[in-house]
């Protein structure tokens, strides 16, 4: 079977070779050392679209996923409703099958959509300027830490111990490779004197709101920048990192209309104050005029970037998550002023309902009763992984097992997608496992 993705026929190939003046296609590969040319390639045999779709549908069917199952898993990735128009619009080939907008005259769609994204991230976060996005929430934190070191000329980053452990891991990987120092602090009272930046996450890994304002004051008193890792849905109701004094605000954009897709693609949100603009990593779209005075959009301040500045660039980032940024912009506009507030409040009320009910179960407790948003920790009467196994058998994806940090603890998440029936089923299932070893 000829490939549907290669229009050249044998006759075409013959004509092309004659035009080139080559006797065979092999001749075109003569620069590859003979001993290493055309090696054996052991891959599964080629299959048709129909056969593969059948096989892949079966493979996908082996995953037990939220939607079919009630889901209480969060920890940085959230099961929120994705309005149909989001995938519909970003699925348009005009957005999906183009490259980075290097030619602005024929890329105004991507450029204007990205400018909208930058604008809406600022509106949401209360920050002054946002970039076109980075890979994900964790690399946004790492890039923010590197940016703080560049701005302050210091080489130590402090983070509070309630930061997402995966984000800590990524931060460590990025900082170690530059020989920078990473220090954990349990409170902001005892910051290292040479800190370039202080990282705080709110809501934190355990779901509780942190005192970002106090952290910002402490960071600033130490001459450091405050890096706040925020949750974009929580900002539907809570005060913004901009208001609370953050110098760099970062977050995971997945909750903004992106499917969970087993870990990606997502988009890292990245915003700061105008004074730090030129130390920002990543792409920026700016509004300008064309030669006839019409508004238009271009990639700008590119002298920060790798293709111009090479080893002196603010980051090596090139291809990022442009389509996801467009999706997030559409989501924010679709939900809008009232919709996002409503989604945030639904999460809040449902999570508190679930926490109250579980706290009342014998054998269970909810240890952190402070201000939480849509996630909370429960102490279980049995190892959480065993409870999760039982829940899965009943069509429930349980919470994240965090017993490596807190004994017998599970981190539960409730969103607007979790129905009262889901919560009641979870509570019943937990009750049956309570008081005795499951």
């Amino acid at each position, binding site marked *: 079977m000829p490939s549907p993705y*290669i229009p*050249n026929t044998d006759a075409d*190939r013959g004509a*092309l070779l004659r*035009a*080139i003046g080559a006797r065979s*296609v092999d001749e075109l590969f003569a*620069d*590859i050392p003979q001993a*290493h*040319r055309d*090696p054996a*390639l052991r891959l*599964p045999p*080629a299959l048709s679209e129909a056969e593969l779709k059948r096989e*892949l*549908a079966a493979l996908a*069917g082996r995953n037990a*996923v*939220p939607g079919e199952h009630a889901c209480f898993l969060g*920890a940085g990735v959230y099961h929120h409703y994705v309005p149909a128009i989001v995938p*519909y*619009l*970003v699925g348009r080939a*005009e957005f999906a*099958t*183009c490259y980075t907008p290097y030619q602005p005259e*024929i890329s*105004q*769609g991507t450029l204007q959509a990205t*400018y909208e994204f*930058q604008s*809406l991230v600022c509106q949401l976060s209360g920050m002054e300027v946002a970039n076109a*996005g980075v890979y994900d929430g964790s690399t946004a934190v790492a890039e923010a830490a590197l940016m703080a070191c560049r701005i302050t000329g210091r080489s130590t980053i402090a983070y509070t111990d309630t930061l997402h452990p995966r*984000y800590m891991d*990524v931060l460590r*990987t*990025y900082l170690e490779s530059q*020989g920078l120092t990473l220090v954990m602090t349990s409170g902001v009272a005892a910051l290292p004197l040479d800190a370039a930046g202080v990282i705080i996450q709110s809501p934190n890994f355990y779901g509780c709101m942190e005192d970002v304002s106090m952290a910002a004051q402490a960071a600033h008193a130490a001459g450091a920048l405050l890096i706040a890792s925020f949750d974009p849905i929580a900002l539907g109701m809570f005060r913004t990192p901009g*208001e609370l004094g953050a110098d760099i605000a970062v977050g995971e954009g997945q909750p903004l209309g992106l499917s969970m*897709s*087993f*870990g*990606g693609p997502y988009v890292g949100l990245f915003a700061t104050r105008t004074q730090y603009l030129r130390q920002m990593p990543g792409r920026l779209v700016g509004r300008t*005029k064309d*030669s006839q005075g019409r508004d238009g959009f271009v990639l700008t301040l590119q002298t920060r970037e790798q293709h111009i500045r090479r*080893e002196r660039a603010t980051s*090596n980032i090139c*291809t*990022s998550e442009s389509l996801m940024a467009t999706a997030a*912009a559409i989501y924010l*506009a*679709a939900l*809008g002023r009232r919709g996002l507030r409503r989604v945030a*409040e*639904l999460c809040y009320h449902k999570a508190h*309902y679930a926490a109250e009910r579980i706290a009342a179960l014998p054998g269970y407790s909810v240890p952190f009763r402070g*201000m939480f948003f849509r996630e909370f920790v429960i102490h279980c009467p049995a190892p959480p992984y065993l409870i999760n196994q039982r829940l*899965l058998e009943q069509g429930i994806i349980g919470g994240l097992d965090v017993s490596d940090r807190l004994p017998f603890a599970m981190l539960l998440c409730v969103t*607007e997608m979790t129905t009262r029936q889901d919560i009641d089923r979870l509570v019943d299932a937990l009750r049956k496992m309570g008081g005795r070893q499951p």
Partner: protein
Amino acid sequence: MTGLERRPLLMDQSKPGRTGCTVPALDVPESPLPPAAMLRDDLPLPEVSERDLVGYFHRLSQLNYSVDEGFYPLGSCTMKYNPKWHDEVARLPGFAQAHPLQPEESVQGALRLMYELQEMLAEILGMRTANLCPMAGAHGELTGIMMVRAYHASRGDKRRTTILVPDSAHGTNPASAAMCGFKVVVVPSNACGDMDLAALRASLGPDVAGLMITLPSTLGLFDPHIVEITEMVHRAGGLVYGDGANLNAILGKAKLGDLGFDVVHTNLHKTFTTPHGGGGPGAGPIAVGERLAPFLPTPHVAHRRDERGDRYEFTRPEKSIGRVGAFHGNFGVLVRAYCYIRQLGAPGLREVAENAVLNANYLLAKLKDAYHLPYDRRCMHEVILSASRQKAQGVRALDIAKRLIDYGFHPPTMYFPLIVDEALMIEPTETESVETLDAFVDAMLAIAREAEQDPEVVRGAPHKAPITRLDEATAARKPDLRWQPRR
């Protein structure tokens, strides 16, 4: 143009009382809200109806040129056709809805796909294994160079503080090396466009951690001395990093592992035809040889067979550099690349490379009389021309690129590689027909004639795009990067 007039920004379209989405009713008792001091006063997001939102983004999309619309010969970007059924598979609920932190036993299908893709990529690249975590090509570079650093450190070799990079390299190479704290030393190319071996020899020493090299190079050339180069670096105690941006040229024709590479990244959004999305999502898996395998990022997907059958699981390699992202890569992109490799198989991948190279050489043959060809030899998947001849007539590479828009084509990459004056880097890919190539050749030849006879029409291009050339200087001098309320 009336049908394509621009619409105001979302915040300017906003009108109180409109919404683009419905939200479920509350089905549990309300809990007391947090104290007002914790809550924001206002949420200044737009209020737009669903119909207007769809109209707006639909209209915006029409201002883009895309692969589905036409020929997109953007050099080094491999803008091939993206098969549509891949998108359908990525949207299957079992893939699209899976949470990355689910218990492994509940996501065996996804893990198996990742494991098989990992191993197929390793086979294609001739390496020991691969890792799918990096989320873009530059992220793969960063990950690979971190591993090079960790490798030398694990041997107590702290002198190796330099990474060598050819003068034709992508900007990401030196930027990635610098992000790992390395000093970057540039190795020049020779008159044939290959690496200057004498200069390489002179640069190699006990301070060199490794060489980053793109093969075929960004000049579209396969360096015939590649094995000599990798051996020289190894003899000096360094490692060889392969930038796989141009892998499309040698799929199935050569394995980078066989040529002495220690670590390679591949851009799934180029070679393996996942849609580029206007600047991502991409995926930049890395493949490694024996020496670097213990340093791979976390997690790696492992397979074992026990009494319950096949089991796939996430593991942490022995001396892992750690995590480079919160989860395990851009899974939605990985699914599409998996579909592609399985549909094509080994013979199909080889055909990809052969037709890509054939098409590029055809353009070279047809255009070399009208445009200067700085390296007069057979090319691989892309041909680099120079507009130096047209520059003498007052027409620059930029003008030619913009004029191509009027002829209905996406411009080639321009002014890269930096070592070619007025560079035009043309990559046709294998998915384009001879009819398309001929139409492009006609346009290029017509523009060459215009440059002689009517240079103004070229210098003022594009004339048929939704907008004309933009004032980029003002954009950078007075940055307007977000919507602001009208004063």
